């Protein structure tokens, strides 16, 4: 086995573990931020300022009884949370965390894989992620779960299209599906008269960015698009019947996919590791944090959509907008580049 492949494997393990740790503290961050926005304190009993709370929660969930409903489709019921949990971090494999660094004389690339179809790979993994939800909803033998699964299937298919199409403008401009290539292009400087701007795609594709943001929230089933769970309507939707660590798998998968899609958005639209001074992974982390903050902010602020409104938004508002964006980008790419 050659050293390159080995370093890739090691880096994959590192990314996976960092993601899992981040995810645990993502729950802490969400609770603390929400508490601050809602005029309360948040977790503060376990450890200093509640810092051990995620660990306590983890232990609690792990030792809880694992209840399987009597009429559940047992095999699928057991499979579904695993599917969700395994697929969520896999998408992070294509995200570049920086240029290569040298460790013990070996050059190590700060990405797990630079594949030619990285962006599409990301979408493909995202589209697989829905299986956990839809199968969990089906297998629970509960009508609320079934409704959650059905809603989720419709929602994820719709917003998957929007998410994919919102990226097409970026692909047209960059001419590549590889995230490494896209980040490299964004690190160039854009000269607009006297202004020197970073060539981030948020500047050339603002509409696509907004649509991506909306679709990303819907894709991860977060408020105000959390209809598959909707605790006040469907009592948790697809995970109504799950308990213990199987529930925690669903829960963690949601947070991991939030982090991963934030990293992805930061990479595609906000220049990834590119920053004003000293490029590096910290810039990526900062940008992803902005995304995550937006997620939490949204959750505390807005009410939930109704099912028909959600689908109407996707098909009647976002889809035409994103198609117009592709059309305009195509025109500019064909004839407009000389003018810039």
């Amino acid at each position: 086995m050659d050293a390159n492949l080995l370093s890739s494997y090691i880096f994959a393990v590192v990314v996976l573990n960092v993601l899992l740790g981040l995810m645990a503290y993502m729950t802490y961050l969400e609770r603390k931020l929400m508490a601050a926005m809602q005029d309360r304190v948040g977790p503060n009993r376990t450890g200093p300022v509640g810092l051990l709370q995620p660990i306590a929660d983890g232990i609690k969930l792990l030792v809880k009884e694992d209840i399987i409903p009597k009429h559940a489709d047992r095999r699928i019921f057991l499979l579904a949370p695993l599917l969700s949990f395994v697929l969520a971090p896999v998408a992070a494999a294509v995200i570049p965390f920086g240029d290569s660094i040298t460790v013990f004389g070996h050059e190590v690339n700060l990405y797990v894989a630079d594949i030619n179809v990285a962006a599409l790979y990301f979408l493909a993994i995202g589209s697989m992620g829905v299986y956990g939800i839809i199968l969990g909803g089906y297998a629970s033998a509960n009508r609320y779960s079934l409704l959650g699964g059905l809603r989720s299937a419709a929602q994820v298919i719709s917003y998957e299209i929007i998410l994919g199409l919102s990226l097409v403008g970026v692909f047209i401009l960059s001419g590549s599906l590889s995230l490494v290539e896209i980040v490299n292009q964004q690190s160039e400087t854009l000269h607009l008269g006297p202004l020197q701007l970073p060539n981030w795609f948020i500047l050339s594709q603002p509409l696509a960015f907004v649509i991506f943001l909306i679709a990303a929230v819907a894709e991860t089933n977060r408020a105000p698009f959390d209809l598959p769970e909707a605790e006040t309507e469907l009592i948790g939707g697809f995970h109504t019947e799950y308990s213990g660590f199987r529930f925690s798998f669903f829960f963690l998968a949601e947070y991991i996919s939030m982090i991963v899609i934030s990293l992805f958005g930061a990479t595609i639209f906000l220049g990834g590791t590119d920053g004003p001074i000293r490029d590096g992974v910290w810039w990526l982390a900062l940008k992803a944090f902005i995304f995550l903050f937006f997620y939490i902010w949204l959750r505390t602020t807005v009410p939930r959509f109704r099912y028909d409104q959600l689908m109407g938004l996707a098909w009647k508002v976002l889809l035409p907008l994103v198609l117009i964006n592709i059309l305009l980008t195509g025109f500019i790419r064909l004839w407009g580049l000389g003018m810039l």
Partner: protein
Amino acid sequence: MSLEISQGTPVEISEERALTDSRRQMVLNMGPQHPSTHGVLRVILTMEGETIVGCDPVLGYLHRGVEKLGETHRYSQFVPWTDRTDYVAAPSNNLGYILAVERLCGIEAPERATYWRMIMGELARLASHLVWLGTHALDIGALSMSLYCFRERELILDIFETFCGARLTTNMMEMGGFSRPIPDNLPGMVRDFCNIFPEKQVEYESLLSANPIWLSRTRGVGVIEPDAAISMSLTGACLRGSGINYDVRKATPYLYYDRMDFEVPLGTRGDVYDRYLVRMEEMRQSISIIEQCLDQMPTDGPLSLTESPYVIPPHDSVMKTAEDMQRHFIWVIKGFSPPKGEVYQAIEHSKGELGYYVVSDGTPIPYRVRLRTPDFVNLQSLPYMAQGAALADVVALIGTIDIVLGSVDR
């Protein structure tokens, strides 16, 4: 005028059609353990996809026989039970019952006590509306509203606590006024609250009224036609949201509501959003009523009738005079006996017309106590509104009726 609600109208369905319908429909049992049914309401929903075709509320999971308890307790002993019907606005319930019994006995509380009763009633209305707003918004998905609302409700509960020592089940009102003195800092607390609250209410509205998702979730949803509202005997914001001008405080004024300068908001469409607007405006009017009460109220004066046989004698005269001591003994041991007769006293509760019907046979125990709780009556508009709505709307509809199951089931 013909009032017709097609709820029970038979619709011709061919046999084949009925068969396919039943195969396509799904019965969803919502509650009694469901986070958005405000307690233990159970709703059996028949759905086609996400559209409701049938809605059947099932009541009684919190039935405690409050009316029957009224027939076994002495008049003053029943007051704590009224706390436990609509527990989010306990002083209003106390008030309604005490007013009914006072009318039966033909007594009236002194002026200062009456003003304080109005203040407490309006504070109870605010407390109840705040719970409604928080849970209604939470049902629709606005997570933070409930916490903001409960933050302000805390202030009201603090006032209750200062006044009578209890926060939720206040047992606040007594025959003939109040036997305990008003704490010195209470008027200041109420004033402070009246100064703070309008700003906070602007905050709520900036979160909801301007929010397109909130508008799309509430506008045009759960429309109640004025005729339907009347024929279902709705009261309160459910009725006024449909544009019908009926407020007990205006129609048959009790306490000193005829001295107050306030307006009754009426909706124009009768949907969830109108009821939301009506209740928000009612909160502003309540603040104005409380301020007027504080301004008009005599600063001192008796808080309770002293001479009436129906009222517990004041503490120091019990200690000083033999007559009062005897009266006190009898009042405590045997209770008071109102004259024979019956009375129906309605007050404008935060949820609508709360009526107490009390029949006395001249003994210390009522012959019959009947509660006309507003949300029990209002709840019958749920199947009407739910027809053709989406599943997600049902929680909004339950929220807009503003039910408290303790009051519905009694």
